[in-house]
Every structure is written in C-alpha cells, then in structure tokens.
C-alpha cells in the first residue's frame, strides 16, 4: 500500500499535506500508545468547535435577531468567518469587544454599552446574548448586567421602544462543551425565556431541527406541507442564511425569514415538539414537555429510509393525518434508486465522522445501502449516539464482517491513524475538516454535516427526507464510480 511507503525526499508523509519543506530525515512510526485520544491529554485536529458558535447559529435563525457575543473580538470574528464560508451569506454578529480592561474589571460596561449601541443602530427584535470562556471565567453576572442594560435603555429611549427588543441570555462557556451543546442550550434558553401558555392549544407542531442546513430545513418543511401539518420551526435558517440577491436593500440589512418571536411564544401550545437531533435541541423539547406538557419526540434525524419513515409515522400518529400518496411516491423513487445502484454500493467500506446526531443518521443510511461502515467518529461525546449506533449495528450485524470501530468523542488524528491501519477504504463521509485525511488516504470524501466550507451548494442541498437521501445516494454512488471503476465500465451503465 502506498501509504506505508516512506515518501520520497525524506518527507514524512504526514507533512506532505502541510508544506513541501522537508521537516525530517525519515518517517518515524507513531507511538501506538499515544494514538488513541483517550491515552493522551493533547488533542490533535479537534473534531468539534466551541459552544458559542452553536448558539450563534441558532440566534441567526430567528427573525430580525442579532447574536451579541460577550467576549473578545475573535470569538465573533471567527464565527462570522465560519458562517460566511459555509453559507456564503453575511452573518451579523455583534461583539462586546473585550479588551484588557474588561478582563480585569469584568464585562459590565461592555454589555450595557454594547446592547445600547446595538439597539439604536439596528433596532433588532431579538438579541441573543451569547457568553464565552472569558465572560464565564470572570464570572460576569449576566442576569444582573442585563437588567442594568435594560434600565439604561428605558431611560434613554423609553419603555415602549425598549420592549420592542427581546433579550435572551444563552450561557455557553466554550470549555464546557461543543457547538452541538451550544445549539442545545440556545434551544432551551429560547423556549424558557419566551414560550408561554395562555391561548387555546394550536393545531401545530414544533420542530427543532438541530444544526441542519437551509436545504434540509426546506426539505423538512416540504414533508410537513405534504402531510398538511402546520409547524413552527425553531431556528429557521432556511431563509436567513440563504437570502436572495435583490438590490436595493433597506439598511440595516436584515435577511428575510427566521422564526418570529410570536411563534416561539406559541410553542408551549403545540401538539408536540420534534427535536430532530437529540443532542442539538433535545433539551428544548424536554423543557416544553416538563413545563407545558407538550409531548417531546426526540430524534432520530430523518436521514435515510427508516429514520424518515419514523419521523413521518410519529407525525402522523400525533396529528392524526395520513401519510399522503405523494410522499409514498418519493419513498418509492428513493427505493428504486437504491435498487438501481445497489451493486455499486454494496459491501463498500466507508468511514464516517462528524457531529453525533447527523452521523448516526448517515450511518443508518449507509447500512441501508448495504455498505459496510468500518469506523464511525463523533466529535462530541454523546450517550444518544452510542445507543443509536449500537442499535444500528445490532440490526445490520449480518452485513458486517467485523464490528465497526466507534469513536465517541476523540479527535481527527486518532480517526486518521486508525484508518491508516485498515485495508483500503472506499469512501469517507464527513465534513470539510476531513479533506486532509481523504487526500492522505487517497479516498473520495462525500461531504455531509457541519461545517462544509470548501465546496459550493452543499448548504442548499438536503440530505434529510426521501428526496435528500436520494441526492446523497447519488453522490455516494458517483464518487464510488469515479474512484473505483475504470472509464470503460462507468461508461457502459
């Protein structure tokens, strides 16, 4: 195998992708003791991001909402940069602009002044205040500070004007979790702060999609429309992070769409809450169940046949509406596509990495395609994920020659080193941080999950629902064809 060869010019192969400058005379094998992430404290190429970015993602899905990051400028800029690269859209995120003085004296002044400046310049309907490592370590009394900020605003612009802006506090110290947890906390913070009973129960359901792309949310809405179900999608980024180019725009520029505050208030009166990703949004659904008795249906993310079936059945059970013929047709088309491509996908060896909820769904789907997952790596450790993966493997045991390796938590270095010990793979499925691994192993990478920043259009193309699964299947099959078969055989199809 080419990988095992010592590269030319004395360049260790793990350096080739970084630069061409020879860094060492020869390749030295890794200390096997230090490869598993559990055996070391140092993390190499983390497979997760920080909590605040998950919360910012969520706030950007609310109508005329601006996240306000109580931290240094980098906490905002890095996230904005990440969003811009993924969505190719502007991301308006305000910073509290911590400097040394804030680090010494705390962020009280920054918060009050920041909220004031943000309100008088942008007149947002919602401000999602997102805390960071620094504000949490300093022990900023955010609740108290926010009261002061509000009092200051009332003095300056009057109570009526102040009330037009709702402020939601989301505590997201980065060191306590990953972006998945950040989204989860935002979901909970929003329903806790806003959802209220009062009106008669509405004939609606709540959807908390988790960190799904605009294309996915559109596909979910399509399924709901076909079912004839009205729904509130909490953190609906389908328009806010995929806006049309239609100048002239009014300024301050707000992207269209997003979940309205009034809708979030009504979430307490819904028939049920569907949290599509247990780890990203699940706690919001659980809160609504405990506090208002709105039943929570948590997971699985509707990727692939079985999961989409489950989602629609649950929806049908709760709303009493039948699954329409149109969706059966979509399902049929997907099954047809699976039958057409099966001889190419079957027994192909695939490695999957990313966020726990999404890759649990992807893993089930590739099993449905008759592929063999050899390694599955979740960047954020999760119990739901472990359970879900266990049940998938139990169900598809007969297809596997060996039990796939599961990494629950851990980093990309561990994942990469493990893959290097295996016989040749056919495919890697994951996000853009896996490009280096895919190049190193000379295996195609099918991009799914968060973040995807090095290709266009992935944020608009669904992977959920039957139609999304069909698109994902085509990409998987085509990558296998490109990689696996000589031209004369791909041309004869």
């Amino acid at each position, binding site marked *: 195998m080419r990988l095992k060869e010592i590269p030319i010019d004395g360049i260790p192969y793990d350096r080739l992708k970084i630069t061409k400058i020879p860094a060492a005379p020869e390749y030295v094998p890794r200390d096997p003791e230090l490869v598993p992430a559990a055996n070391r404290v140092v993390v190499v190429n983390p497979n997760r*991001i920080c909590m605040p970015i998950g919360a910012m993602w969520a706030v950007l899905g609310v109508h005329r909402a601006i996240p306000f990051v109580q931290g240094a400028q980098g906490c905002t800029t890095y996230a904005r940069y990440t969003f811009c690269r993924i969505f190719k859209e502007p991301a308006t995120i305000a*910073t509290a602009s911590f400097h040394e003085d804030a680090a010494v004296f705390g962020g009280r002044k920054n918060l009050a002044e920041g909220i004031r400046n943000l309100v008088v310049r942008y007149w947002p309907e919602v401000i999602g205040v997102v805390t960071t490592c620094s504000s949490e370590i300093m022990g900023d009394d955010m609740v108290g500070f926010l009261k002061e900020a509000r009092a200051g605003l009332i003095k300056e612009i009057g109570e009526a004007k102040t009330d037009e802006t709702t402020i939601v506090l989301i505590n997201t110290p980065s060191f306590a979790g990953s972006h998945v947890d950040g989204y989860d906390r935002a979901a909970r913070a929003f329903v806790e702060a806003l959802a209220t009973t009062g009106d008669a129960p509405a004939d609606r359901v709540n959807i908390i999609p988790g960190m799904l792309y605009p294309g996915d949310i559109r596909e979910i809405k399509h399924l709901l429309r076909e079912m004839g179900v009205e729904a509130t999608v909490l953190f609906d980024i389908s328009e806010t992070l995929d806006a049309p180019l239609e100048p002239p725009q009014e300024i301050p520029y707000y992207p269209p769409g997003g979940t309205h505050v009034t809708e979030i208030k009504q979430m307490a009166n819904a028939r049920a809450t569907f949290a599509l990703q247990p780890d990203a949004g699940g706690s919001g659904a659980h809160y609504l169940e405990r506090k208002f008795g709105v039943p929570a249906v948590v997971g699985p993310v509707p990727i692939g046949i079985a999961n989409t079936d489950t989602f629609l059945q649950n929806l049908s059970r709760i709303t009493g509406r039948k699954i329409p013929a149109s969706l059966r047709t979509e399902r049929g088309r997907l099954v047809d596509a699976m039958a057409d491509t099966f001889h190419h996908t079957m027994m192909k060896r695939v490695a999957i990495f990313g966020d726990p909820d999404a890759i649990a769904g992807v893993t089930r789907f590739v099993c449905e395609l008759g592929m063999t997952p050899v390694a599955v790596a979740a960047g954020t450790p999760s119990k739901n994920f472990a359970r879900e993966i266990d049940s998938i493997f139990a169900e598809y045991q007969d297809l596997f020659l060996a039990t796939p390796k599961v990494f629950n938590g851990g980093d990309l270095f561990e994942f990469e080193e493990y893959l290097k010990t295996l016989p040749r793979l056919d495919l890697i499925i994951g996000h853009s941080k896996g490009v280096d691994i895919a190049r190193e192993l000379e295996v195609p990478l099918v991009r799914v999950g968060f973040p995807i920043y090095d290709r266009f259009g992935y944020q608009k193309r669904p992977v959920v629902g039957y139609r999304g699964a069909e698109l994902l299947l085509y990409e998987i099959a085509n990558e296998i064809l490109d990689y696996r078969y000589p031209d004369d055989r791909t041309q004869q199809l």
Partner: protein
Amino acid sequence: MSVLIEILPSRRGQVVVKRGNVPVLPECGRPTLPGVISERSCAFYGARWMLAAIPDVIHLVHGPAGCAYYGSTVRRKSYRIFSTQLVERDIIFGAGAKLYQAVLEACALDPHACAVLVYATCGTGLIGEDLLAVCNRAARKVNRPVVPVNAPGFCGRSQAAGHDIAARVLLDYFIGTGEAREPVDNGVNVLGEFDVQGDLDEIDALLKQLGLKLICAFSGRASVSAMAGAHRARLNIVHCQRTGHLLAEGMQDRFGIPYLKVSFFGLEETASAVRSIARFFGTTGGKEVIEEGIRNARKAVTPFLPKLAGKRVALFFGASRMGSMARAFAELGMDVVMIGSQFGCREDYQDAEAKIKDGAVLIDDAPEKDLEEFISERRPHLMVGGTKEKYLAHKLGVPFLVFPQEMSPFAGFRGFINLAREAAGLVSAPVWRMAWPKCYLALQAKES
C-alpha cells in the same frame, strides 16, 4: 464636514473626508466599541496569522477546542493543530500540569519537530496560567525550545497586538539562533509576507532577476533552520509594514541588518521597490527588470482598462497595504472613493491619504453598519476587502474583490495583470446587470 454616512457619535473622528490640501487623518488605534459588528479580530488570530505557516514546529493551542479549531485554518490553508482542549475542571484547578503533559505527548507524536509554540487563549490568560514556567520546564524535558506565545484574545485593540507578540517570539527564540557566520553577499529576507496565493513566488522571481537570494520570508516561507540563518542577510525587505516593522527594527538592533520598506502591489510601487533594492546592492540589472516588467504588464492590462476607467472602488482591509493598493487601483484608472482598515496606524493613513483624491472617505475600524451605509449611499462599482464583508456587499448589489486574494497572486508586475483581470471581470460581470432590474439601472445611471 459631512461624511455622508451616519456613524455612532463615539466613533466621531474615526471617519473623515479628504478635502483640498488640508491633511486630515482618521483617529486610529482606538478600542472597538462594544455592540458593533466589528471586522476586527483578536490577538490570538493575529498570532496565528503570523506563525501558522512555520512548518517544522508543533503548534499547540492551550485553550478550549474551539480556539484550536479556528486556529487550524489560516489564509485558506489547513494546518495540523495540537490543543490541550481545556474543560471546566482545568479552568477551575489550573491546567499547568496538563499543558506540560501535552507538550511531552505532542513531541512524542511528532519527534522531528524543532520547537513547540504554545499559544495562550482568553481562558488561560484569565486563570493566570504561568505559561513561561511550564514551557521552560517542558523545554528541558523535550530538549528543544518550547515557546510561549502569550496572546490571549482580549489583549490589545485588535489582531495587530497578536502580530506584535508573534514578532517578538520570532525575534527572541528563532531569528539568528544559528552560528554567527559571514553574511551571505546577496542574501535578503522578506518580512511581513505570507505567500497568499503565490505572492511570494512573484516576489522571489523579481529578487532572482536581481541576482538576490531569499534566505527566509516571514512567515510565508520560514522554517526553524531558515530563521536561524536569517541574520546572515544583507538586507531586510519589509513588505507588510504592520507585521514586518517590528521584526525589521529588532533585526537591525541585534544584527545590524538595514531594512527597506517597500510594496510589491502596483506597477509604480513594484518599480520603486526594485529600484531601491537594486540601488542598495549596487546592481545594474534593476532598470531592465523594471522596464521589461512594466512594458509587459502595460501591454497585458490594456484590454481591461476601458472596463475599469473611472469606476469607483472602495477599499477596506488589514492595514498597511492601503496606500499601495490605492495607488495600484489608480493605475488601473479607477477612482478610490473610500479607503479604510481594521487596525491601521497613523503612518498607514498618512501614506494612504497622500494617494487618494478629494472627496474620498478615510475610515478606521469600520464596523459592518458603516460599510453598509457607505455602500448604499455611495454605490461603489467595486468593493475590496475580506471574506466577512464580501457577502454583505453582494446583498447590496456591489461586486466584491477579496483581498488578501482568493485566486492568483497580485504582487509584482505579473501580479498586477491578475489584479487588472480580476477587477475588470468583477466590475463587468453579467450577474450585476441581472441583479439590478431595469428601473433601478436607470436610477443608478442618473446618480453617476
């Protein structure tokens, strides 16, 4: 003096309009106001920007996974990054032992690395981690330099603070650590050049034409051994003044290497750069290099010029490239209507002010709202800036050129051709004719 755009009163003075011969400069170096959508970043970002490209060291971020994640992508390239991935427990009880262990493990995983760079983050800065002590202890154990980069995100006004801290690290630990040998006769260093999309190749080609040898470029092409021998250069060429100035001063103090501040963006700037470098070395070839370069470039950009003539362009980027880029766009026949930067210093703005026309706006640390208002009020034909500003400009119907560039090098005579081609392509892109429906086009014509 009317600025035409509404700014927050506390930012007054940071936006000025050039009028006549009275020099006006925006106030600069002020901390960013809380509550704005700032285009600035943090010191950690600045330090990563400076140091990321050094290949044969271990980059270890002492902070939560997020900072490591963000720090792994710099200038559109992906780098391996090590992290201690702090969790709550470490924040409460301190993470010195964890860091020490992490350095040892990182060196075991990457035994060839010549040094370890340990980056501080906000979290470690706040809990008061004694980075230097841990690094020194670890250095004795792993028998190679373990260097603290003490740039927690909140320090300084912007990423510029990180640039300075990183420059100090290079000076204190890496530059000139090799044997004290004779200077290389034709050896030069390039300071503040990060090799974005092959800029450095263009510069290197020019230096080669002059018979010069590039010893080390900080830090587009720097390795520990190249930096160790950097003191043998005869001349330091400072390209980005913001990031290169401190290095240049330090190397002059320590090794007596003189430096030249130049720019390789635009024909005139490149020509004067080549001229002054050639003069320094007493080379005769400079004149031919310039003449040939300019002749070829002028010929190659001719087809693009009609598309660019008289078009308004607004520039907003890093800092010290303001002046030379303004001049480059002027050479293309474009009208620079705004020039601004995230963290420019007085000299940067003086330099820029001298190169723009009456009525142009100078703006320091513009937050998103100011840019937004400027774009809708003044409607430039082209906006130049970073990725974060790009998509907003698009939404407001203005074509955008990303700088530092996305596609091809802009440095040198050949880079100028790329600049002209890309600017002309963007300005005349069919998409903007479709984006603006006819009724608005008529309106736009009336205005301009």
